[in-house]
């Protein structure tokens, strides 16, 4: 099979010939154009000559020529491979023609060629004008959204031209060196042109490039109008159904692929997205379009934000406002607010949207400017995408984190990163039981004061929405928020605040789970009243479910895992506040201990999605720390260091999660101490508690003990006292005793040798700073040495590890024989790290190191066995 690939690649890599087959009235015949495209091997010269050849063919033909549409993609390809392939004159000519194709395609349908049976001669039949997407006769010029049964060649060119339009506008834009005169002219004419272009009679006088922009603008405006038309009229969804039925009927025999949803553009926001992207390019190239575009894009945004089926079109709209908001003096805050507060919370389960959203954030970072704050405070919402789709998004978030990290929210962000698997579980729960939760969330204790409701009980909600018929072959809903067929409706009157809201619980025919649909005039705000008005209003918001319904028929969670206990947990009054905190939309500035939630969500910890998320967290933590150490001051570093200690034994229990997180935390604790050495002295109390308290893993403990030995010294902080050193010494001495000699049960794992050696070293370091302790540590070290010589008796690890402990104890003992040398070695002054101490053999350090190593080696050589 792999040979197939090879053979194919070889075929492609060679001089593959592309044959254009062009239809003509007599049937289908092969045209003669053979274009050598794939044998290019990246040779720009060949690309250019190909471009010239294609251009010649294009120029030699009439605009109605039958095969032009096959050549346009070649031109597009050529310009993308070699932007300078076409001469300026050719670019202009083609721009002019693209404009014509876009704007002046025929509005009559193509001629139908019916053979008329065996005897009659072929005859042509005119099918009438093309129609709009809703079936009405076209009111204006032809676009890709116009429909008909047959299309003329210029209508095909229209489609081709629009498909390549954005790339062409970008590629054919006169570059800085390319045509400076064009730029000058546009500046000079800037004011008059806008007047001119407003009148279509004068527009043919425009230079080709501007002509094309003008036509592209009109085209996009028309697309916006057409998509609006669709959204306004119900008829189009009927058309959609009719087309599906026809297709299904027409090919009943040919597998049920025919039942697939529409593959075309109806009901899909693809064109709308492209139109907005093109408008964006146009406004960037020529700001005079801006004022004409703004109002319609504002209207578009207002229209789109209410409809989950079009949610992906909101991203280019937001991008447009990012690019032009400042120039147009538009306050686009509402756009960003809506984007960041609602979309992640409601659509986190859509993998494509998640990817696009994160790409948008990543690509737009330089543009956010003063709006970066909105992005930064929305990190809890952005993390929902990450929590749900961690495999494809981890690398993007690694790139995004440095921009998201802010000194003000770093602590909160670290907490949330550590709770990411827990967030995944909570989102899972939210999706699973959204409809049920809505009922529960509406129960009186959760309602805001002043609200009352009369709802059927949860049970009645559940039982009242079974699929009305059990047939599995329901029509799928694809990319559309069309109501499912024959919805089963329970209308509830909910007195909320000022007005009534209409809750409709519907069930699609196939869904094994009840699907809820909210039809509320206001933005839905059922459920828990959130602390901030902009935050995702409720856990049980049905909108997430509603968008789910639009996106897919299958639930995105693991149906094999059933955790009824979790639902109860969700309704538990104590846990609700915590869930609400975990699922917040924006940084709240507060930190909640989520420990009760870990227990409640434990049944979901085995979900593959939660485990995947847990696997991503160490990578994200590393990215977080490398970003935060760039901006952290002393206070923040201390705060983060304490947070590490606190969270190291307070994590959601996912298999393998704790070990992975501990590895990162243990490597980051010394880094934070290095950033702000006095923190060891400042937080002596907390550190003492940590080393004296119950511990789970060795990694963090090792790094904390090391940091104590390294930074608990007068040279780092004048406030360090002998008493503090003695306190730490005692605590660590007790700890060493505990890990080596008193193991309450043989089932407990043996203490890793790293912990023992680091403890011994730290104790020696402390003793070198408070020399009264030297006799005590010497005694201890010799005890350790003798203990390590008979590992079988104690709780010492295996022979090899015992050897390491023995060697370390011997070395330390030898060093302690000369207290002044020991002090220099264990507490070097800060200058020691300067290069000259290491380059110059006459300075003290190399001398001392040589002496020490001689001493150590000699003594080690004398060791028995």
């Amino acid at each position, binding site marked *: *099979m792999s040979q*197939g*690939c090879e053979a*194919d*690649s*070889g075929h*492609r*890599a060679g001089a593959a010939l*592309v044959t254009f*087959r062009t239809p003509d009235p007599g049937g*289908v015949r092969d045209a003669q154009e053979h274009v050598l*495209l794939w044998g*290019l*091997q*990246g040779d720009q010269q060949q690309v250019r000559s190909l471009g010239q050849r294609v251009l010649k063919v294009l120029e030699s033909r009439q605009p109605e020529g039958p095969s032009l549409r096959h050549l346009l*993609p070649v031109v*597009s*390809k050529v310009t*993308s491979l070699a932007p300078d392939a076409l001469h300026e004159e050719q670019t202009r000519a083609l721009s002019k023609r693209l404009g014509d194709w876009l704007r002046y395609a025929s509005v009559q349908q193509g001629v139908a060629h019916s053979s008329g049976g065996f005897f009659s001669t072929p005859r042509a039949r005119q099918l009438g004008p093309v129609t709009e997407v809703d079936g009405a006769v076209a009111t204006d010029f032809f676009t*890709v*959204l*116009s*429909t008909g049964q047959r*299309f003329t060649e210029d209508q*095909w060119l229209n*489609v081709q031209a629009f*498909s*390549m339009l954005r790339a062409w506008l970008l590629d054919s834009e006169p570059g800085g060196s390319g045509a400076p005169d064009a730029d000058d002219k546009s500046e000079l004419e800037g004011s008059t042109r806008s007047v001119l272009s407003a009148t279509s009679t004068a527009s043919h006088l425009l230079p080709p490039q501007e002509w094309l922009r003008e036509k592209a603008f009109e085209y996009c405006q028309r697309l916006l109008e057409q998509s609006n038309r669709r959204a306004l009229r119900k008829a189009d969804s009927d058309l959609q159904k009719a087309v599906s039925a026809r297709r299904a009927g027409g090919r009943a025999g040919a597998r*049920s692929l025919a039942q*697939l*949803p*529409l*593959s*075309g*553009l*109806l009901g899909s926001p*693809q*064109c709308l*997205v*492209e139109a907005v*992207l093109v408008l964006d390019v146009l406004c960037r190239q020529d700001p005079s379009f801006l004022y004409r575009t703004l109002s319609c894009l504002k209207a578009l945004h207002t229209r789109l934000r209410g409809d989950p089926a079009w949610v992906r079109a909101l991203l280019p709209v937001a991008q447009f406002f990012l690019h032009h908001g400042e120039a147009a003096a538009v306050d686009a805050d509402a756009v960003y607010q809506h984007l960041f507060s609602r979309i992640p919370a409601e659509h986190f389960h859509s*993998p*494509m949207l998640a*990817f*696009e959203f994160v790409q948008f954030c990543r690509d737009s970072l330089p543009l956010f400017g003063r709006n970066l704050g909105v992005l930064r405070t929305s990190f809890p919402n952005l993390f929902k995408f990450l929590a749900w789709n961690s495999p*494809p998004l981890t*690398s*993007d978030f690694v790139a995004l984190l440095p921009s998201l990290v802010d000194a003000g929210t770093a602590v909160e962000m670290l907490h949330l990163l550590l709770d990411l698997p827990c967030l995944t579980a909570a989102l899972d729960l939210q999706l699973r039981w959204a409809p049920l939760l809505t009922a529960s969330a509406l129960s009186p204790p959760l309602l805001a004061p002043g609200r009352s409701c009369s709802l059927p009980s949860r049970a009645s909600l559940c039982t009242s929405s079974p699929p009305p018929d059990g047939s599995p072959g329901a029509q*799928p809903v*694809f990319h559309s928020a069309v109501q499912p067929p024959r919805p089963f409706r329970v209308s509830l009157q909910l007195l909320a605040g000022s007005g009534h809201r209409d809750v409709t619980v519907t069930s699609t025919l196939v869904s094994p789970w009840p699907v809820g649909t909210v039809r509320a005039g206001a933005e839905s705000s059922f459920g828990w009243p959130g602390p901030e008005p902009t935050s995702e209003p409720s856990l049980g918001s049905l909108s997430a479910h509603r968008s789910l319904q639009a996106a*897919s*028929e*299958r*639930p995105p969670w693991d*149906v*094999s*895992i059933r955790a009824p206990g979790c639902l109860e947990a969700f309704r538990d009054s104590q846990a609700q506040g915590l869930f609400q905190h975990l699922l917040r939309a924006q940084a709240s500035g507060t930190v909640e201990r989520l420990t009760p939630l870990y227990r409640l969500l434990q049944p979901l910890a085995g*979900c593959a*999605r939660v485990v*995947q998320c847990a696997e991503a967290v160490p990578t994200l933590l590393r990215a977080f720390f490398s970003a935060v150490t760039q901006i952290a001051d002393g206070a923040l570093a201390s705060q983060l260091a304490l947070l590490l200690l606190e969270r190291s034994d307070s994590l959601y229990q996912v298999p393998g999660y704790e070990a992975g997180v501990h590895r990162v935390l243990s490597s980051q604790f010394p880094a934070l101490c290095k950033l702000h050495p006095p923190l060891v002295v400042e937080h002596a109390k907390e550190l003492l508690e940590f080393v004296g308290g119950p511990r789970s893993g060795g990694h963090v403990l090792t790094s904390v003990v090391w940091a104590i030995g390294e930074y608990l010294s007068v040279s780092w902080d004048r406030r360090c006292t002998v008493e503090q050193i003695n306190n730490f010494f005692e605590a660590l001495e007790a700890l060493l005793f505990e890990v080596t000699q008193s193991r309450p049960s043989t089932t407990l794992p043996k203490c890793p040798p790293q912990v023992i050696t680091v403890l011994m070293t730290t104790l020696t370091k402390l003793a070198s700073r408070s020399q009264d302790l030297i006799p005590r540590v010497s005694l201890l070290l010799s005890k350790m040495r003798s203990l390590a010589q008979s590992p079988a008796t104690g709780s010492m690890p295996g022979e090899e590890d015992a050897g390491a402990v023995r060697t370390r104890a011997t070395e330390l003992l030898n060093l302690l024989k000369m207290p002044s040398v020991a002090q220099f070695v264990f507490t070097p002054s800060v200058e020691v790290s300067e290069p000259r101490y290491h380059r110059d053999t006459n300075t003290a350090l190399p001398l001392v190191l040589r002496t020490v190593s001689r001493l150590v080696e000699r003594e080690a050589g004398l060791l028995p066995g």
Partner: protein
Amino acid sequence: MVHVFLIHTLRATKAEEGLCRVLYSCFFGTENSPNDPQPHGAERDRLLRKEQILAVARQVESMCQLQQQACGRPAVDLQPQSSDDPVRLHESPCGAFRLTAGDPFQEPRTVVWLGVLSLGFALVLNAHENLLLAEGTLRLLARLLLEHLRLLVPTANLLLRADCIEGILARFLPHGQLLFLNDQFVQGLEKEFSAAWTR
């Protein structure tokens, strides 16, 4: 603009685990490398492309696998229950991910993929493509390929039908150009293809 279209296996049988096979691939143009002034031999370029394709296919396979696991769908789910079962293309796992510059392509790229039973379909796109359009096109291509090549019939041999695949690509993805085709245009092209193919 699409850079590459590929079809590969998803979730090979137990015995072949870890082996991802590329069944078909189509590059639309090559990458120019400004760092290499000397043009390389065709053979070297071919091997490079082969490696690049395989790297993409492996990533798609693991992304698909992870997504299936996360949704709690077993591997069996990828096998057709019976040949009469409808292929629910809209329910098939799909997704997108980013390829950073230099890994494996010189430019940053975006991959949109679709897993249909045991086959993976993927488009490697330039960084700023209209992803909605790409996704729609990929679904369309998958549907056409499944329908016209009868890929899911056990005897179907995809490897021997590269010309048919090319016929479809030349119409629905000409030279890697994503097209805005409404349903009627799609039907028109399908007729054109059928006429040319059965002739």
